[in-house]
């Protein structure tokens, strides 16, 4: 292979290592019936989404939440806030991806937090869901509580 390739270094996520303005992008995900069936089971949602060919509005929320794992080694965290603006329905067969950008980081009561804006798009780049979420950062040495994912 004659092309040079850039290796992405995965840093441990800390308030210091995190850079405001850093951008993330998820892998593409093809929305299949099993996604909707699994989600319906997990949250006991009896709406006939499959019959309508439409996904529950929050189906891809974890694609956004896991964005920071694409660039950092995340020891543990805590999901503090989540905001959604639902623009267009996510439909079966769509290939969707989520982009995110770190817009703030701060410390409150001794705890570090990061704020990420995100947009989930279809394969044409059309925005389906926009929003923002806040996650606590729990660095490895002092981690005793928190979501590991």
């Amino acid at each position: 292979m004659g092309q040079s390739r850039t290796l992405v270094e995965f840093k441990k996520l800390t308030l210091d290592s995190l850079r405001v303005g850093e951008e993330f992008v998820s892998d593409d995900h093809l929305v299949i019936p099993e996604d909707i069936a699994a989600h319906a089971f997990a949250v006991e949602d009896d709406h006939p989404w499959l019959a309508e060919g439409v996904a529950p509005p929050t189906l891809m929320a974890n694609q956004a939440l896991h964005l920071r794992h694409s660039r950092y080694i995340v020891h543990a965290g805590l999901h503090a806030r989540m905001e959604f603006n639902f623009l267009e329905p996510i439909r079966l067969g769509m290939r969707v991806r989520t982009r995110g950008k770190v817009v703030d980081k701060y410390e409150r009561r001794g705890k570090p937090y990061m704020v990420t804006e995100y947009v989930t798009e279809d394969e044409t780049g059309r925005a389906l869901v926009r929003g923002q979420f806040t996650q606590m950062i729990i660095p490895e040495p002092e981690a005793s509580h928190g979501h590991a994912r």
Partner: protein
Amino acid sequence: MATRVEPKIAVGETLPSFVKDISQRRIDVYSGVKPNSIHSDEAWARKKGFSTCLAQGMMSTAYVSQMMVKLLGPDFARGGTMSMAFIKPVYAGDRLSVHGVIKDRQSDNGATRVVVEVWVENQHGDKTAVGHATGLVS
């Protein structure tokens, strides 16, 4: 998606609440089964100081979405909003109840936007998630 006839939505109205039993199996399906995850690895969760595995806060946003879809129909996915704060952990084995009260009706580009205060409580009556959701009615 079919247009839904505007339901009778009055400020102050309490939406029908519903209950969710948080089983480990449902958490596993929602979050995936991974080692060193407080959602699916009980030994790890205990090591981190929890009594058992925790549900993702995000599951509660799905419950609120269900409440809004019951109120407004699947068009909640077009123009709906939600803002939630997760204020207490939810454990496997918890029984949650999902609540909403209509707080406002606002004009929004020829439509009406309904604002709902929403919250989720555990079996002890403690709120685990609080926030607002809004959606458009024709």
